[in-house]
């Protein structure tokens, strides 16, 4: 899956027009599989900034009902030649400087790197670890941009309404037999293609993770959900991401997105 869908799964930062909604017809069981894939394809291509996107985000980690940690996060995305690169950096606390880079490729997997300041060099992330949780969060490396559309098969379900929004409901199943999370069901807002809810099931077909988005605002011509909550129901652990500020096409330096620059200081802060 293209990296743009990162915003769907992590921050659900997506553009919104109704134009593409018309391309999806009413639910038809006979075309459920092709429709499901098509909805994901549209969502993937639907919401990309012309040049770049930056979001200043506050992350709250909760263990049960107790807040266990808070961190500031800056997320940057750049689009170049139809391919995206996304940076995710903790900017405070003892995790400061830890940076995660996803480089979208045309190949079967995207490239992902983790930079830990104490190690001082970027480290590749094994593609088989893409369903592992990122640091202490309830999001996986896959959620952070490692997802490839071709890794899944899709089936559209009957359309549903979620908090007043008409949604496409699509279930994706991993082709890999050893996937940690073989199934996920997504509710896409039919107007904006923002995934309002994602339910992720484990190998025992038990609902383990839920991601929901809300507080959608308009930034430039982009609709951004300013709140995303990811919860691991089994671990009873929650990750809350709140966008403090976001900018579109502000002219981010392309060199920031090179793995060898992952340790460099950023002019952006908050």
């Amino acid at each position, binding site marked *: 899956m293209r990296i743009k869908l990162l915003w769907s799964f992590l921050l659900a930062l997506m553009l919104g027009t109704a134009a593409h909604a018309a391309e999806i017809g009413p639910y038809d069981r006979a075309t459920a599989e092709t429709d499901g894939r098509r909805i994901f394809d549209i969502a993937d291509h639907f919401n990309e900034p012309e040049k770049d996107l930056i979001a200043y985000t506050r992350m709250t980690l*909760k263990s049960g009902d107790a807040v266990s940690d808070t961190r500031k996060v800056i997320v940057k995305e750049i689009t170049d030649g139809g391919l995206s690169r996304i940076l995710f950096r903790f900017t405070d*606390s003892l995790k400061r400087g830890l940076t995660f880079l996803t480089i979208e490729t045309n190949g079967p997997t995207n490239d992902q790197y983790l930079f830990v300041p104490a190690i001082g060099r970027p480290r590749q992330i094994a593609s*088989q*670890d893409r369903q592992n949780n990122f640091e202490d969060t309830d999001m996986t490396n896959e959620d952070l941009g490692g997802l490839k559309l071709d890794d899944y098969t899709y089936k559209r379900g009957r359309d549903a309404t979620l908090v007043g929004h008409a949604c496409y409901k699509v279930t994706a199943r991993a082709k890999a037999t050893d996937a940690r999370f073989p199934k996920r069901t997504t509710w896409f807002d039919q107007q904006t293609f923002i995934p309002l809810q994602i339910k992720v099931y484990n190998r025992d077909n038990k609902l383990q993770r839920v991601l929901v988005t809300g507080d959608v605002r308009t930034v430039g011509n982009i609709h951004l959900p300013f709140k995303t909550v990811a919860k691991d129901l089994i671990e009873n652990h929650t990750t809350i991401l709140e966008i403090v500020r976001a900018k579109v096409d502000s002219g981010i330096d392309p060199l920031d997105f090179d793995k060898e620059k992952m340790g460099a*200081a950023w002019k952006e802060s908050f």
Partner: protein
Amino acid sequence: MERVVLRQFRWMLPALIVLTMLLTAAGPLGASEDPATAADQTADAQTTADDGDAEETLEEDAFMQDLLNESTGGDVPAAAEVDTGPALPLSYEGEVMGSLWAPNDHDDDWHTSNRLDLKGWKEFGALNVDGRLRLDYQDLEDEDKARVDLRELYATYQLRPGTGGYVDLAMGKKILYWGKGDEVRPLDRICPEDLTALYFNDINDRKTGRVGTFVDWQVNRQFRFEGFWSPVFEAGESPELGDYYEPSKLRMLADAGIAIDDADEPDDWSSDAGFGGRLMFSVVKADLALYGFQGYDPKPTYAVHRIGTHPLYGLPIVPQSVRATHPRMTLYGADIERAFGSVVLRAEAAYQSDGAWFSLDWAQDPTLLLETPSGTVEKDQLQYVVGMDKQDLFVHNLFMNLQFVGTHIFDYDSRIIVPESDNGVTAYLRYSFLDSKFEVWYRYMILFEETEQRHHFEIGYKPLPWAKVSLGAITFDGDADAYYFGQYDDRDFVYTKLKLIF
């Protein structure tokens, strides 16, 4: 007879079941179909389905709202209230680290190593200025020392032509990070290191920058080139006589009456102090880089400086002093990193064709100084690291790194003290839990030739997002005459550490 009836019944039973199902589905037995009744039944079914859907929708809505209403805690300010502007015109961040080392067999004193690191950066249009300053105080050397080290201060000008990629031109003092090994990086020899606390601090924390000009050219998405020219030489800080980590060989020479003269360092400023570059590219998901460097070695090599004449034989075989030298070295190398399945493999190799000088055993056989008055010979040397990483080994957040390390001297001279080849293994395990409030790690290294080992264990607790307290221990093992860890066999110690960030 009974068996025949049963056999017939075996066929009859399924037939009866199928017939019953058909009749039930067609309606009451013998009754004609009433269209109104059928329509009512359909409507009822639809109503039931709609009610079910509505109920499901309500449940989904409630579930989603509950999640979106998750509290971020009373002590967490609302996102909108967070100050989004920098408080100062200069962006900065800092870190304070203090440590206390318990007494051990080597001495009965407590020791301490402390530092304050400041990092600042500022953008002036297309020009960026970055700086890194360290103040440190430690009593690990002959005398307690407080130092100030401007580790980095450089200005970067960004060239962004429409074609030809992106170029950053920098001038000033800058730290370079070469190689892909974990802590052991044969290629990472460009910048001076502070080894007075040996390996207590990680390699990146031990380094200081090189003064020069730097070019960083990203040709396209696949190729990138970094080059530098440094007209300034700065030697690293190495343990000396009287220091906590004084080299045992140096102590033996001093005890034998051989003086340690001032180091023979190149001129501070010279046009050939150092230059090099690396070309980075990717091939079939593998990240590769080729390296080249020529310049003075920041790490010292000890050589005989003054020689006296033997009173009986009249031969110049009496060493009177040694001194540290910094020979010119030529270094070529390459590294590679690639993920295979759930592990990431990496390798790094450095071939030194000039400037690798090795001590001869002239302490045992002074006549060696007749042919080689410096007591050292130059040989080509290969150093390498092959290793693997595994994230989430067995459990989430358990990281493991294993490396095989080695060195080989070409055209070996049997008079050299160190072996022709030496191999070893390094291991690093790190586990964090409770949202990284606790972190435990263990680093191990063994060199097979002399069975020298170093263990480093630390457990840390983070009571606040900006504070961490740790308790750790370092032990050395090996022959006391050995060159690396064995000589510090009596310097095992326990320490506590406090780290604050701002």
